[in-house]
């Protein structure tokens, strides 16, 4: 049985008129890599700030390691690592200086916790004299991660660490996270607007407009998809899509890379669909596929 590291009970938070979080409940077990998946403005950052003791919720409570985020904030602050959204390092300090500073802020040294950051640091080492502002996007993220890890936190909060970063750097970043989880058993909460990254988490919560749409393992999330999903590939996807949208039997049709994902009001109508497409001279192939997280997210979004 895993230990509960984070317990969120019925948290709501509003900024004047806007409801940033609406009655959120979550629990996250020790050692899990937990993903908070949702677009900008979904409320991810607000939730992170509440968990990192920076904000007080209007309603509800949150505890980390059984410590309350409002009353025990001092104890919590010693044991968590936080990487805020976007770039949050001193751009006029070098890689080395940033690391040293954050180590000293937490009353430790780079050496004493070097094991923790070794894998990431070796990638940064060639640039250790370089100012943080001169690093590439991917390198900046790595440095920020090192800075958040330098005091060996029990829980790591990463707010959109891969935002605006190219696919290669993103992949490297996730590899690092996976490794950390394995070797140091850190509980990690990470938010991202990229749906494909959800598959890399142990558990994910889909969040949209301050509400949680679903919480589960990535595999199980896709099972919440309520229709049979078809993938259509054609020689002209856009034209096909426009045609499909006009058909009554189509429930939903979206572009997905070089194919179209569609659901029918009645899954048995697939033969009718093929006939109709053929009759209109479309060159196409159609097959039944498993929905992915993005499919599920979009369906849950539309139900809201």
């Amino acid at each position, binding site marked *: 049985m895993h230990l509960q590291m984070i317990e969120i009970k019925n948290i709501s938070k509003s900024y004047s008129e806007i409801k940033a979080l609406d009655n959120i409940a979550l629990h996250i077990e020790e050692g899990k890599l937990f993903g908070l998946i*949702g*677009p*900008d*403005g*979904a409320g991810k950052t607000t939730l992170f700030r509440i968990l990192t003791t920076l904000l007080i919720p209007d309603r509800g409570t949150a505890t980390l390691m059984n410590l309350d985020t409002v009353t025990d904030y001092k104890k919590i602050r010693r044991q968590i690592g936080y990487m805020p959204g976007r770039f949050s390092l001193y751009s006029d300090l070098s890689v080395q200086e940033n690391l040293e500073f954050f180590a000293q802020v937490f009353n430790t040294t780079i050496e004493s916790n070097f094991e923790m950051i070794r894998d990431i640091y070796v990638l940064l080492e060639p640039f250790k004299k370089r100012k943080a502002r001169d690093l*590439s*996007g*991917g390198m900046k993220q790595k440095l920020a991660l090192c800075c958040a890890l330098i005091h060996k936190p029990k829980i790591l909060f990463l707010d*959109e660490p891969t*935002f*605006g*970063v*190219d*696919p*290669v*750097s*993103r*992949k490297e970043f996730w590899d690092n996270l996976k490794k950390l989880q394995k070797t140091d058993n850190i509980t990690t909460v990470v938010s991202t*607007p*990229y*749906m*494909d990254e959800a598959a890399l988490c142990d558990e994910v919560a889909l969040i*949209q407009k301050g509400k949680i749409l679903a919480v589960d393992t990535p595999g199980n999330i896709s099972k919440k998809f309520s229709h049979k999903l078809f993938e259509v590939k054609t020689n002209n*996807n*856009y034209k096909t899509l426009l045609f499909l949208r006009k058909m009554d039997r189509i429930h939903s049709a*979206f*572009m*997905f*890379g*070089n194919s179209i994902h569609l659901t029918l009001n009645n899954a048995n109508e697939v033969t009718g669909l093929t006939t109709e497409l053929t009759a209109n001279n479309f060159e196409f192939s159609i097959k039944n596929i498993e929905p992915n997280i*993005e499919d599920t*997210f*979009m369906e849950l*979004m*539309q139900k809201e």
Partner: protein
Amino acid sequence: MNKVIEVENLTRTFGHFKAVDNISFNVEKGEIFGFLGANGAGKTTAIKMLTGILEPTSGKGKVAGFDIITERNKLKYKIGYMSQKFSLYEDLTLKENIGFYGGIYGLRKREIAERTKKMIARLQLGDIENTLIAEIPLGWKQKIAFSVATLHHPDIVFLDEPTSGVDPITRRQFWDLIYQAADEGITVFVTTHYMDEAEYCDRISMMVRGKIAAMGTLDELLHKHAAKDMDEVFLKLARQ
């Protein structure tokens, strides 16, 4: 065929650093051209040269029929630009924003009014002409920003990571707009970190360390690099 972008041996150096290293390519009218690359690969520098903001160190190029070095002022009337950062003025209403951008491009009042009406109808936004941009949801803003960037009917529109952080449905609605624009003959030049979006493009180019490492249709690239999707192509090329 009508070439909207013609670039030959374009190079830009900063000190000893070659940000863009001898790139050559063409983009046809009405094409959706995906411009990919890792952070720092030189995409932004290339776009700055193509939009006439930055002078190349060597090489030449024509965009919308105008030379990017000698005719940059004429060029600017023929292009549209939208980035993730560039947005509309939050403290102005939609109508005021459109009036401002229309004015920059020398559109007449009547034209602006006409196009505004058309645009709002197309985006199905309802009665929001006099709403402050600050009060409009994020997903809509991106779509509005795109429509404003194409308000003056440019030959080509440059989109720099236009959909970053946007929810998956809005992202697709955004791409509907891109397809519509391409259908009307506007060439679309787009950068993105979403590889599925790269796959929506007619042609894709991939920059690695200042050079164009690959260019072609999706099928060509997948075939050439023996990959199942663009994500794989990207990883293979960027790690060379």
